[in-house]
């Protein structure tokens, strides 16, 4: 692991939704350039962690802190987090009626550019910029004039999340089960895109149920989340161990801790 100050530092994070405590004290530190994977059984709180970091209003933080670039992430509105460089690839991307994909992408990119004091891109400049990004993920522009995610297949929706990731160039990218529901070709495309985007100034937090995606994206650290706590952390080999042994032995570990 590289040394240096953490880009994201989560300590003792406890989170509830609808009165149920889901995260029961999560500690996590991610440094610039690192790729962390969070694995765990269904209901362990993986998606809650991803969503609460992005600022989803349905979750209540009971205790703990999350510092991003040294600032209090939990005190920021979702749009402020995004403008500061946090990106969540949704597990279930939302359909937006009447707004085309390209209009949406340009609105989002320009919101970030305004924040950075950069000039907004007009439709023509944006289209050129978009062409390059599309090429990088092996897409043509056929999905760009359709309403956001409307009528998209499951795989197309996930790929659209990765396109947004490529366009918005975040500093911390959180992928919430981006691999679920993808066929092997789509999975490879997503992994290739993520690998291309790996950079010393960008970190990834990859939430996944399966080890499959990690065959193509080699993480620096693998965490196992069970019953709202990180019960084990290790190198990439931990993912293979989980694949072989399943999650049951960890539940017992969680009980012990």
């Amino acid at each position, binding site marked *: 692991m590289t040394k240096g100050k953490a880009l994201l530092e989560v300590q003792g994070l406890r989170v509830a939704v609808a009165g149920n405590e889901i995260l029961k004290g999560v500690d996590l530190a991610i440094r610039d350039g690192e790729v962390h994977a969070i694995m765990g059984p269904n209901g362990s709180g993986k998606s809650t962690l991803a969503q609460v970091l*992005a*600022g*989803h*209003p349905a979750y209540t933080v009971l205790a703990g802190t999350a510092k991003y670039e040294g600032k209090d992430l939990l005190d920021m*509105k*979702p*749009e402020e*987090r*995004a*403008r500061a460089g946090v*990106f*969540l690839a*949704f597990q279930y*991307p*939302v*359909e*937006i*009626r*009447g*707004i085309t994909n390209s209009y*949406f992408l340009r*609105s*989002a990119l320009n*919101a*970030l550019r305004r*924040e950075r004091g950069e000039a907004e891109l007009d439709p023509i400049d944006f289209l050129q910029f978009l062409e390059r990004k599309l090429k990088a993920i092996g897409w043509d522009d056929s999905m760009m004039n359709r*309403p956001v995610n409307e009528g998209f297949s499951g795989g197309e929706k996930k790929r659209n999340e990765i396109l*947004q990731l490529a366009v*918005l160039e975040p500093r911390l990218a959180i992928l919430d089960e981006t691999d679920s529901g993808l066929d092997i070709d789509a999975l490879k495309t997503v992994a290739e895109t993520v690998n291309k985007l790996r950079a010393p100034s960008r970190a990834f937090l990859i939430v996944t149920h399966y080890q499959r995606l990690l065959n193509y994206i080699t993480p620096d650290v693998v965490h196992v989340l069970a019953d709202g706590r990180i019960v084990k952390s290790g190198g990439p080999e931990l993912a293979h161990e989980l694949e072989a042994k399943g999650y049951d032995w960890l539940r017992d570990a969680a009980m012990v801790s």
Partner: protein
Amino acid sequence: MAHVEQLVGSYRAWASNGASRAPDWLKDLREGGIARFHDLGFPNMKQEAWRFTSVAPIAEGSFELAKPPARVPTLEDIRPFLLLEAGYRLVFIDGFFQRSLSTPFFDDVQSLAHVVTHRQDLVREHLGKYAATQDRPFSALNAAFVDEGAFVHLPAKATIEFPIQLLFLASGQQQVVIHPRNLVVVDREARASIVETYATLDGGVYWTNAVTEIVVGDGARVDYTRVQREGDRAYHVATTQSHQGRDSTLNLHFVAFGGKLARHDIGAVMAGPGGTLILNGLYLLAGQQHADHHTTIDHAADHCASHEYFNGVLDDKARGVFTGRIIVRPGAQKTDSKQTNNNLLLSADAHADSQPQLEIYADDVKCTHGSTVGPLDPRALFYLCSRGIGEREARRLLTYGFAAEILGRMDVAPLRLQLDAIVRGRLAEQ
């Protein structure tokens, strides 16, 4: 009832004076109309078709027949209401045809009053043959006062690509009623694009009671857009009735955001097999506006497709009413009918009523319908915010998307872009 008598009285005065030179068949149409209106009186909320809309402000108000405008506006005055600079257009002020502001085309794009004498056979064949009056008091009242309005005719296989504009402006006369009557006849395999607009130059309290009949011949194609942007104290009552022949295509687009009280009865009869109909509407209401769209699609022939989409955006204390009646007649097999009505409530005091009415008398058909009423989707809001878009902007974007979904179906690009700009302006005000 006093007001019914007032209207009948003003009809008698008008019929014996200015309108007395009309041909007999037209006089019969008018007499039939006023007799029917006198019988029916104004509708009330006990009637099924008027459950959600009270016309008391009209029925209890006092409205004189509009007089010719004291001053004819200039082209500059009306420019803000022209959606397109070029093309044929007919302009009416307070219901009176304005030759100086219009660009007619012989007797094919012309004032109805003119063609009643110049193309008597054609007008007589169609006028009043489609818009029912039996149980429609407003349509009956309009028939009584049939005089001025727009006439558009396309002979077989003719094409006018650029949209024809029909513009109806109220000049600001107070407490008047205007009865525009329009007839559009597109013959076999002809193509036309038409836009009909209602607006006001000077606001005030007035009442528009319009009827438009649209006849689409076999294999013809018509794109018809109607924009209702009356003044915010105006009453707008209208009937749009279409009749389609075999293998014809009719795209009807409606954008309504004017008037204090608006009621629009839209009827579409698919009389020949293989017809295609799109009914695509948007209502944007705020303040205390009330708009009622009452639509009836009548599948009278087999192998026809009708797709109906109405979206409403309601703010403040506005109320939107939508009724989507679909009749599939016996023998109208292979009907493909789809209806959706989505209402977006931007305020806790806004209200929407949505009622589908399906009457299906054939067994081999596909009919679907769905409606929604609710606030902005919080999941969609979070999705946009999570991409860096501020909450205010995200709300604006999602609201616009609701409208854009309807505008996106308009094939005539210059018109779509104009309406898009108008809708954006309107949403920015809210």
